[in-house]
């Protein structure tokens, strides 16, 4: 038997005898013959541990590591070694959703910590623990706006939101019957006048904006929440999680919902996943919120304990009337985020942002000095910015990739522009070496 199966031939025989059948195949006797698979699966034969290791190492080696100056929703931040070490403890990782609270206090406690941390960073009252990534979390925020509104199915979304988030919201809107209306942009930020006109039509359930936006620009939302609330429109702000520590929080802007991706909180880029989305809101909207929630209570000995709660919103109780179909509790990633934020603390989160800011601004200026780039917008940014390449941006990006650098991502709908990011992990030498290389590339 393979090493994952403990059954001896004797075990199998004894068990078959208890059941009263003669063979394993007889356990499938009721299945009509015409739909059974006759013959074996067309797959390779079993492999030893060393063979599997060899194959997968070989695949990893076929990828080429690039020094990362790209963002657009995934950022190359430092992860303290303690984070994967603790998250890898199998008492956590091999457990299920904490239905049996008496033997799941570990999971329930770190989720409670995660909820506290995310609610605090976003300036909201509550956070769920169930979102797959930032794009689906934003789609859930969109559906939450419609769910909370009375007879409104229109949601406004700033066209400066990350393209990947926009694309997922479009898909969910199309099938869920949400009328998703893009608010135009002006000078790289949401056109506030266009937003005002749409909000004043008095038929939008929500407005979704992005911070920093798809160009890296930090937008000014002064007055936006009041305008929204005058017209019974909920305001949702999608923010890069790491930036919440230094930028004005969604709560401070007066938002009703905060959503986004928490990958920037120490989660490896990992070719796009697993990440965790966050979704936070005000207490008044808790019953409209999708996903798992952990709450504090007491046990029979009156000790402070934690349980899954407010389950009457969820699919396993409410079925088609649930706030969402979400079943996941993104536990492993909640633990990642809780460990990361505990280690970094207020000082570390500030320092990560200061260093990312400084390194991105240094890179920005150094690129302009090469004479091969020009400014597109005159606007404040944190650690991501957009420049126009005086020449073929795609060719430049490819040429740099050949030399081991990933310079930004192509900026959607902006010809020859790249949206470029830096973090505290990028050294002066990496930046200088790349900039020197750019000087030698003919555009």
């Amino acid at each position, binding site marked *: 038997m*393979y090493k*994952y*199966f403990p059954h001896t031939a004797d075990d199998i025989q004894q*068990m078959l005898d208890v059941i009263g059948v003669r063979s394993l195949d007889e*356990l*499938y006797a009721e299945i009509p013959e015409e*739909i*059974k698979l006759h013959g074996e699966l067309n*797959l390779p034969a079993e492999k030893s*541990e060393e*063979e599997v*290791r060899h194959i997968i190492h070989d*695949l*990893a080696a076929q*990828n*080429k590591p690039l020094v990362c100056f790209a963002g657009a929703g995934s950022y190359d931040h430092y992860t303290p070694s*303690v984070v994967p070490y603790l998250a890898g*403890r*199998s008492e956590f990782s*091999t*457990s299920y959703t904490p239905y*049996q609270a*008496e*033997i*799941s206090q570990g999971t329930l406690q*770190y989720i*409670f910590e995660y909820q506290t941390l995310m*609610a605090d960073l976003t300036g909201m009252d509550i*956070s769920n623990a169930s979102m797959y990534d930032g794009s689906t979390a934003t789609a859930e925020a969109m559906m939450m706006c419609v769910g909370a509104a009375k007879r409104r199915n229109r949601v406004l979304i700033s066209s400066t939101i990350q393209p990947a988030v926009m694309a997922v919201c*479009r*898909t*969910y809107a199309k*099938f869920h019957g949400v009328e998703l209306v893009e608010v135009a942009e002006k000078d790289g930020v949401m056109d506030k006048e266009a937003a005002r006109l749409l909000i004043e039509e008095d038929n939008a359930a929500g407005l979704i904006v992005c911070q920093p936006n798809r160009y890296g620009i930090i937008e000014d939302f002064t007055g936006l929440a009041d305008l929204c609330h005058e017209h019974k429109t909920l305001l949702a702000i999608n923010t890069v999680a790491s930036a*919440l*520590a230094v930028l004005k929080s969604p709560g*401070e802007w007066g938002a009703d919902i905060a959503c986004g991706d928490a990958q920037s909180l120490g989660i*490896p*880029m990992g*070719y796009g996943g697993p990440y*965790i989305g966050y979704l936070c809101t005000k207490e008044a909207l808790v019953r409209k919120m999708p996903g*798992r929630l952990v*709450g*504090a*209570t007491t046990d029979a000995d009156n000790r402070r*304990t934690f349980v899954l709660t407010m389950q009457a919103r969820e699919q*396993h109780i409410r079925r*088609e009337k649930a706030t*969402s*179909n979400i079943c*996941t509790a*993104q*536990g*492993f990633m909640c633990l990642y985020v809780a460990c990361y934020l*505990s*280690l970094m*603390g207020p000082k570390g*989160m500030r320092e990560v942002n200061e260093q990312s800011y*400084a390194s991105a601004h240094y890179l920005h200026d150094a690129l302009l000095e090469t004479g091969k780039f020009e400014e597109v917008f005159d606007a404040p940014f944190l650690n991501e910015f957009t420049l126009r390449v005086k020449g073929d941006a795609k060719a430049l990006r490819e040429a740099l*990739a050949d030399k081991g650098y990933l310079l930004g991502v192509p900026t959607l709908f902006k010809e020859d522009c790249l949206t470029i990011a830096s973090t505290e992990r990028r*050294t002066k030498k990496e930046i200088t070496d790349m900039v020197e290389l750019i000087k030698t590339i003919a555009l």
Partner: protein
Amino acid sequence: MNRTYYGKLIFELSRPGRVGYSLPKCEFEAYKLESLDGTLLRQTATLLPEVDELTVVRHYTNMSNNNFGVDTGFYPLGSCTMKYNPKLNEELCQLPGFNQHPITPARYAQGSLKLYDEVQKTLAEIAGLSRFTLNPYAGAHGELTGLMVIRQYHISRGDTKRIKIIVPDSAHGTNPASAAVCGLQIVEVKSTADGTVDVEDLRPLLGPDIAGMMMTNPNTLGLFETKIPEIARLVHECGGLMYYDGANLNPMLGVCRPGDMGFDVMHINLHKTFSTPHGGGGPGSGPVGVRQGLEQFLPNPQVINNGDGTYRLQCDENSLGYISFFLGNFGIIIRAYAYLLSLGKENIPMAGKLSVLNANYIKESLRSHYKLPIDVECKHEFVFDGLREEYGGDHHDPEHVTTLDVAKRLLDYGFHAPTIYFPLLFHEAMMIEPTETESKETLDDFIAVMKRIAEEAKADPALLKSAPHDTPVRRMDDVKAVKEPKFTYKAL
């Protein structure tokens, strides 16, 4: 598991001035974050704790000691397939070569793209379907994506009236919930007394407004729906498509494939069938497969094999659109690939068969003490309807010993509880799924404990009513958690 309750929160360990990280000195002193306009900056201090590294390590280690996982003990949680999570998979998913930015040019991510394609091909062979997307993040996300495929297919034919989906009354809660998110109306079809779909109840529901039908096979009672060829024919005749909820795929591996049963679209839970860890409820992965002719509707981006040993990313204009940031939970997909490679064609079917053997063995061994509402051979799981009357399980008696009481008492004996009060067809449902990775000794221990609990229920019901007694904490006040909601440390 440590029986002593730890119970502290990281915020209670915070002391001003402590740090748990180290960063190099900033090399770009000329640039200061403070130079940003103050109206854009955060004004409120955060609650983030200030703790040193060892404090963090002890805190989460102590917490983990109050947690139960598959590595701790037997986890017979029905419908969740809590099989062993191989450690090799954990090692390989962390290879630095896979830690790339998602928007890396495809020619520098060929290893990852090849891995993705190998997994999709393997799943297609196992499912008897044409092509898979691995982009969905979870089982419910897969359901939603699969239903979007079905709707997109109808829309592409200009058939916009198909807005209803048929779901059996025994279905997982995610089925109707996913259908609702997808904008479909749910039509419930009843089960017969033998626990399978009532074909006579189904017939009148079929018509030109039916987009399709969702089924789990074996169903949530662990029973194979033997009328599936006829059901699939009827649904296809009315123009609908058949959706297979892959939650219960494990027992079918290599024996009977969803594509051969007549299904057109399905999802697979990699965290159930293909051994990736459940992680306390996530992240999972819910690949979606389709029959030939439906590939174009799968979500973007798709990974395409160029046929010359290279791979590319492609967006299809007929696609339903994007449902994820990029290519799904790639780290989970690597783990599943390691498992599929390890087992190979011989052992993938063996996993299914041994899971059925284990389930039937428990069922036959415990039916003397627990009510077996449907007496036929089960597949990977089965459902008891609580204790038998002679062991205090008569649910007409308001004082009867409930399934919850039995579940809580099991915790005292070092076992996780089964899934309880699901499916909704029975009053005291107790759904048991042992999986193939458990030994006969473990099952025998479990059986002995379940019988002992039945005896306890007869002799001393109060012992069960107040269980658990030997866990880090005792039964919780769930009502208080709802009536006095506290979701953050600040609210305590």
